[in-house]
Structures are given as C-alpha cells and as structure tokens.
C-alpha cells in the first residue's frame, strides 16, 4: 500500500514535467532538449536557496523563474539566432550542467534537517507518503486550471495555432517567434518547478538528476495518449498526469521484478519505444480488432490477388 501511495505521489510531482514538455513537444510540435538541463537547474536553485536559509516557497518560485530564463535562452538561440531547435536545446542543456555545478558548488547537496515544502505541520500530520500526493494534487490542479484557462484565451489560441500551422499563423498576423519563446519559457519554468519539488521530496539535489529526464517526460505524454486515445485539449493535460502516474506503476513493477535502480534509464527507453511503436504494431497485427472482438477466423478473401 505504501508503495502504491508513494508511486501516485511521485507520479503527480513528475506529472508537472510531462505537462511542461507537452507544451513544446505536442502543442508547439518540436523537441526541446533544454529539459535535461532545466530539471536539475530547478532542483539546484531551489535546494541551494533553501540551504542558504531562503523560505521553501520563495526558493521554489525562484526555481520556476530560473527555468523560464533557460527556456528563454533556448528560444532566443532558436528564433533570433536561427539555430535549429534540437541543437539550441542541446547547447543550453550542456551549459546548464556547468551552471548547476556553479550554483550548488558541489555535485550534490542534501536537504536533511532543513526546511522544505514538505516540512509543514499539516503535511507531516498525514500518513506516510500522503504528503507528496496532497501537495502534488494541489499544485497539479492549480497548474492545469491556469493552463486550461490560458489556452482558451485569444493569446492561448494563437499559441496553439503557431504549433499547428506556422505559415497560417503568420499570415493571420500572429507573432510566431514570440509564441515559441513564450512556450519555451513556460514549459521550462514548469519543468524546473517539477525538479524543485522532486528534490524537496527526495531531500537532495544532484547535478546528474537530469539524465534521461526527457524520456520520462515523453513517456508520460505518450502513455497518456495510448491509454486514453482521442481527447480534447484540457483532457489531454489531465491524461499526461495520469500517464505519469501509470509510468510510476510500471517502474514499480519492474523494480519488483528484480531490476535495480541503475537499470531504470534502460527500462524507461524500452517502455517509451514500445509505446511509440504501439500504433504500428497494432495495425500490423490487427491487435486492436482482436482486443475488441476476440479472435475471429478470417473469412476467405475472394478478391485477393485478382
């Protein structure tokens, strides 16, 4: 039971990462590699600030802002510097590694014995692991409601249109470069926020905690899509979070099956690859039909090869 509660809590906190990535990967429709740098950046900024005596709330907000700055740099390299987005992201991600080391001064910092979001009397009064579930739900709901509202505004619609058909968006006078910068900023802000929360929940920040992050974020998005299928935009945001929780359960099963934590990146990639191939496999094998109707004996095909 504890394991399940813990998985849900972690899934919710990691869900922010999925939502952040969703803004660029699905809505703007490009892969943003900055993620691997901004996730540990958020953790580094938050944990360092807390260990210097800043209040956890302010430190978390600071982490969000730091992520936005990193996103803006990627955006400027891409829109103004005309560097391809994949490369721009990799550049900022690589630079972030050094920046994170500078911020922390060492490769990892522990938060043990320090204040954090999780050390308030209400959360501590809850049963074990229910603190991250409560906090995760609280923050996820706020973020999803704000994002859903934003996407329904004129600006939000222009943002969606930019990713959907840039040429059309331009011909309607939408400043597409600005939309991309905005998307990258909000996306990386949310990802840094996710990093800050995970670091506080784990009680430490490590400069290497960003490795493989993009795969985890993508897995949340793709699992959500595979499981829930066609949805509206608002439902898709929720599906990403559900995908993130399901992904935590998959990891739980894998660990139970005897794999170690060192194998997790391999497992993550395998899970993601399988999910990405699922549509192809499904059509090839007719699995969808089999799952829905059971195995049918195919009728003799009369018009074959004529």
């Amino acid at each position, binding site marked *: 039971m504890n394991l399940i509660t813990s998985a849900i809590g972690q899934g919710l906190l990691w869900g922010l990462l999925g939502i952040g990535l969703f803004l660029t990967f699905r809505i703007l429709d490009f892969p943003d590699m900055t993620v691997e740098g901004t996730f540990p950046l958020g953790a580094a900024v938050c944990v360092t600030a807390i260990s210097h005596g800043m209040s956890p709330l302010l430190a978390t907000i600071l982490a969000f802002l730091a992520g936005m700055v990193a996103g803006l740099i990627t955006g400027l390299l891409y829109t103004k510097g005309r560097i391809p987005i994949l490369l721009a992201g990799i550049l900022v991600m690589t630079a972030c590694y050094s920046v994170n080391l500078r911020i922390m001064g060492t490769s990892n910092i522990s938060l043990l014995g320090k204040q954090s979001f999780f050390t308030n009397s209400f959360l501590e009064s809850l049963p074990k692991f229910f603190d991250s579930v409560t906090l995760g739900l609280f923050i996820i709901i706020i973020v999803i409601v704000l994002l859903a*509202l*934003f996407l*329904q*505004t*004129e*600006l*939000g*619609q*222009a943002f*969606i*249109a930019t990713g*959907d*058909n840039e*040429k*059309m*968006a*331009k*011909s*309607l*006078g*939408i*400043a597409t470069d600005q939309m991309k910068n905005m998307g990258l900023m909000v996306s990386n802000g949310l990802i840094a926020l996710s990093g800050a929360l995970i670091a506080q929940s784990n009680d430490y920040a490590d400069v290497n905690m960003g490795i493989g992050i993009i795969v985890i974020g993508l897995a949340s998005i793709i699992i959500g899509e595979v499981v829930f299928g066609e949805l509206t935009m608002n439902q898709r945001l929720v599906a990403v979070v559900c995908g993130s929780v399901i992904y935590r359960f998959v990891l739980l099963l894998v660990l139970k099956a005897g794999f170690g934590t060192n194998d997790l990146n391999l497992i993550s990639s395998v899970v993601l690859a399988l999910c990405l191939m699922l549509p192809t496999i499904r059509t090839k094998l007719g699995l969808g039909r089999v799952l829905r109707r059971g195995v049918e004996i195919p009728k003799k095909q009369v018009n074959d090869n004529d």
Partner: protein
Amino acid sequence: MTNQPILELKHVSTYVNKNTPDQIKILNDINLSVYAGDFITLLGSNGAGKSTLFNVIAGNLAVDEGQVLLKGKDITHLSEEKRTKYISRVFQDPKLGTAPRMTVAENLLLAEKRGQRRGLRLRGLNKQADKFEKLTSTMPNGLNQRLKTPTGNLSGGQRQALSFLMATIKRPDIILLDEHTAALDPKTSQELMEATQQRITEDKLTALMITHHLEDALNYGNRLISLQNGSVTNDLRGAERDAITMDNLFTVFEG
C-alpha cells in the same frame, strides 16, 4: 481613375543570387496600381514572377529595388506580420491555410483577429456560433455542418472554402488568391470560384487572383494582367478586357 490607388508598386525589382555571377532578375521594374473594387486575374507561365509578386505584396519577400505603397503609405519595409492587418491571403495548398488540429469555428475565430493584438481575454467561441453558422452556410460544400470538426478531417474543397472565409471574415484592404482552387476537382473548383466571385462583388473587395486556368481568368474578375519574364505585358480592363474571348486570347497576348 482620379482616386488614389489602394496598392501601388513603383519600379519594383527582385533578384535571386544578387551580386553573384548567377544573378537572375525575377521581377523586372514592375509598376502596378490597384484601385478599390479591382478584381484582378493574373496570368503568366511558370517562372513569370506571379508568386514572387504576391510574396512582395504580402511582405514575406523583401524587394531589392523600388517601393510598395498601401493607400499612399510606404510599406516597403513593413514586416509580413504587420501587413496582415491590411492584406489577407489564400494559398494553393489546402494544408497551408488552416490549422489542422483546431476546429472550423476555432480557425474562424483566429482569423477574425487577423493583424490585431491578441491578449489574455477569453476567446468567446460560443457567442459567435450563430454568426459562424450563417457565414459558413454561404459556402457550397456543407461547411456549416462541420463547425466543430478539426479542419484536418475536412476535404480539400472544404478547407479551401474555409481558408477563403478566413481571409475575408475581417475585411482586408487587399485579398491575394494564389491559385486557391487549383488543387480541387473541376466541380468543386468551379463552385468555390462562383462563391469567391459572389463574395468579392457583394462586399466590394479588392482582389488579386493568380490562375493558370485561362477560362477562369476570363470568366471572373474585372481586370486582367499578364506577366512575362517579370514584367507586366498586358493590363486590360473595361471594354478592352470584355472583348477578349477564348478565341482571340492568344492573338491579344502575342500582340
């Protein structure tokens, strides 16, 4: 023609590979005045410079020499985004004109704010439902039944009809139609062309339309321009234009 032209091109030239041995002149000293109510059909073979001319007017191609004036104001250096306030465009490729994952109504809503500031106000889609229903029912192919359908699921003809509506929903000073029916089957193409003519005449819009279809160039519009090697070779209107038929078209153009 005492009134001021809406759009004026003065000595406009453009090159590719400028200042290299491979320099080619695409538009060659074009002078063109477009007046309110003009519905210009633009003829010319491949490479004549029709699309370049449209790109120059829309602002996604900078001119190398000359000036572009809109209602007397110099817009030569105004960005494409800023020009969208005055100029709308329909592309040839049905995929280019609409956002595929957004619904028909959402696309119309986007187009309604063409060239305007988009803020954090809620989009107010439901308030406009009746208006959109009425507007789409002016199109021949059942677009009004599909208001809540993502445009990616529409037929090419429906998408082009939607693109055309999007280009006119907020009245443009100039509308550029870049072979907007070329990708459609003959029947759909003709229906959309009729609807286009009707809308442009009723609303007294000013339009430029590229076409490769000689019949269309004669049947629609009220002014006919032909381009060749980047220069205007014919510019006919009024009685002169009406005198052209499919039979004497080539003699007029050769001469």
